[in-house]
């Protein structure tokens, strides 16, 4: 399942696992490509369970939060749940500045995040 350039994907049961491959998500073009790839992966799935893994990402612009907001809506529009993990301190700062650390379910690593889906 490696047809994507910006994301690495996997499935654990019904959970879509998405790992962002870029070290820097600062550029609008990179962000647009990630957005398109995620949309292609999730397709018409209604309220899917999604795990986002940030462990490769060192830098991220606040515009990326917009994509996370879109995912949050798509997921909570159905019965799905959105979890995030592997967020480094510099990235966490972006969440913190916007208070979004309180909106999103953020976990240390993938196993810890997966455990919360049960």
């Amino acid at each position, binding site marked *: 399942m490696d047809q994507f350039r910006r994301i690495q994907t996997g499935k654990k049961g019904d959970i879509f696992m998405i790992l962002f491959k870029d070290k820097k998500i600062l550029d609008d073009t990179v962000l647009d490509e990630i957005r398109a790839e995620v949309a292609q992966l999730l397709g018409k799935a209604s309220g899917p369970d999604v795990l986002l893994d940030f462990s490769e990402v060192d830098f991220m612009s606040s515009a990326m939060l917009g994509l996370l907001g879109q995912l949050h809506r798509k997921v909570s529009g159905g019965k799905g749940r959105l979890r995030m993990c592997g967020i480094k301190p510099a990235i966490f700062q972006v969440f913190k*500045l916007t208070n979004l650390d309180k909106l999103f379910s953020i976990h240390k690593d993938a196993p810890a995040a997966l455990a919360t889906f049960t």
Partner: protein
Amino acid sequence: MPGGDVADLTTPAAKGVDVLIAEDSRMQGKILQKRLTDAGHAVRWAENGSLALDMARERRPDIIISDIEMPVATGYDFCKAVKSDPALRTIPFILLSTLADPIDIIRGLDAGADNYVTKPYEPDYLLGRMAALLATPLGEDDLADATTLEVSLAGQSFKVRAGRQQALNLLVSTFENAVAKNKELMVSNQELSVARDGLERTNKELVSLNAEISRINTQMIRDLEAAAKVQRSLLPADDVSLPSLDIAWRYVPCQSLAGDFLNIFPLDDERVGLFVVDVSGHGVPSSLMAVTVGRFLTAKVADSSILVRQGPDGRVVVASPADVATQLNRLFQADEFSGLYFTILYGVLHVPSGRLDYVCGGHPALVRIPAAGGPPEFHGAEGFPIAFVPEVVYEQKSLTLSPGDRIFLYSDGVPEAMDKDREPYGEEKMASCLDGGRGGPVDASVASLLDAVEAWCQPNGPLDDVTILGIEWKP
């Protein structure tokens, strides 16, 4: 087609002869063999000159076609051997070569070759040469009157022994070869001239396209400038001045259009509204959203304002910051979230008492520099960015200023400004820079923070819009 006009020479006399080929390339050998077999000839094929000589002695062929460059025995060696063998020497011998140096022709003549065809050749041309040779067979008498001629070419002298007929044949074949090459050259030349015309046309089109692009570019720059002007209308006047307040601000968009803006203005006789807004992203989409948001954040009592409205008794009613945030969030909810959102810190300052009510929609906390001394304080409030999630509660907080206190609002372009190693400027340095400005005018404080951020981001400059608003309360 070089061979086109000599193909007629393929007379019936040339049909069904015994041909011997010497060719080391399997592919070229096969192709040639097939062509000759198709033309009705019996064909034998050897991989080198030595094998070919054996085959010629085993059964005398009517004609020999030989490559020059071959291992074991070259075409020249093979030719010499044939021409010095009394039983074989009247067999017409054609040399095939990729070489086209005049010296090669002399060598061929010296080896006794009757004909010379340069590769690549048209099969019909080769068949034509074969037919011509078979039509003018060499007699023993021709070979008998062979004389040694001395030829000088390119500073080298050659002794060539050849009969009249043989020399004539080779001369004619060389000439025909030259004519064929000349024709090819003429065709190439024509193609070149067609290509050049095409290039000139394309060039002209490019020039006109370039002019079109430059026209569109000028238009776009004009549009962007007009849009930037609309955006500047969202900002306070340069010399904004309100009673009991010292106000200073800076706004540096990182592109011609920005997602940031700020303002400060009176809401009624006692209250002042102030805010910094930061729309996610940059450029046209962000700027369009900024302008739309700005329409709602106005102190003019009009339908569009969500800050003030006309009460039943005709007096102005000022909305609470929490109501403003809730209202904005409701207004900017779209069925399909585009990913565009904004953060805001909105405050209402009651000027007589110094009480500031404020709300944060995902926006960084404001900084207070207490006049009485003590470290800078960060004051934030709970609340998600606007347009992010529907039906959110925004926490409203209050802060009571002391005379001489300063507050600073800013966009995340200040603490998140990155140096060349992508290290953020940070809240700590920001606070201590503002702290260092105590005693001087507010404007100097704001200016020095902007300078510090720009210096931090050298050599590339800030990648985000930088917005700062500073206020000192001096009742």
